[in-house]
């Protein structure tokens, strides 16, 4: 199974990357942009999707500072 894990800074956690992007966009002429947050995307093929949550808590995300969201996409990508 193909899985996609979205990892983002928890609400309220300092996100200087998001702030930097939010400031850069108006400089390029894009107005009306707010609440920008920058996170990570991990894509992986897994045999047992029930392990994904454990993977996230132990390695892929740091639950103290990051939220994660697991999406599964069928089928596994051709290697």
């Amino acid at each position: 199974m193909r899985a996609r894990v979205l990892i983002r800074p928890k609400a309220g956690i300092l996100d200087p990357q998001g702030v930097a992007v939010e400031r850069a966009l108006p400089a390029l002429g894009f107005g009306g942009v707010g609440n920008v947050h920058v996170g990570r995307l991990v894509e992986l093929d897994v045999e047992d999707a029930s392990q994904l949550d454990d993977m996230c808590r132990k390695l892929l995300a740091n639950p103290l500072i990051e939220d994660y969201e697991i999406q599964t996409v069928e089928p596994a990508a051709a290697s």
Partner: protein
Amino acid sequence: MKLGVVTFPGTCDDVDARLAVAKVAEPVALWHGDSDLHGVDGVVIPGGFSYGDYLRAGAIARFSPVMESVIAFARAGGPVLGICNGFQILCEAGLLPGALLPNVKLRFVCRQVDVEVQTVATPFTATCEVGQRLSIPAKHTTGCFFGDVPREQVVLRYAEGHNFNGSQDDVAGVVNEQGNVMGLMPHPEHAVDLLTGGSADGLKLFEGMARVAVA
């Protein structure tokens, strides 16, 4: 008395850490892939970019064979000092509270900083006085401390005007509840000789560590 210094792929301050340790004890090089701690009485996890800082600083190193042994050693009460990347690894390993976020201005910063000793009730600061200022170099991109830490576990705070990375409550260094594991972002191993370090204040932490390791 032997103090181990761990080297991961990407570690760059292990040589300075061993030179610093050599002033107070016999340094022993420990390798990330070797779970044998070679009978050391304490462990220093030095700075650098273990495993390329991939995923998150310290996230991969935390699962290396040597760290499994270091975690067991720390849980048994052995003294462990994590510096910079070592601090990040100890947080990821759950041995220290909190986490390190990117610096508030997102820049790599390399400068001398003053930190103030908050408590001397830890082995590492037993050679200091409360309120004493230590001048130690800091150099990192991911050093903004975040986490709720009981006051008694905060060992070092950046002096006024020296908190360049945005750390919560100016926290520069913390210990675990038992007091035998310490992490800090500045680099005491670079400040053990007046000729090169700007001060020799960093030596105090190693002296304190060596003292408890003997006991």
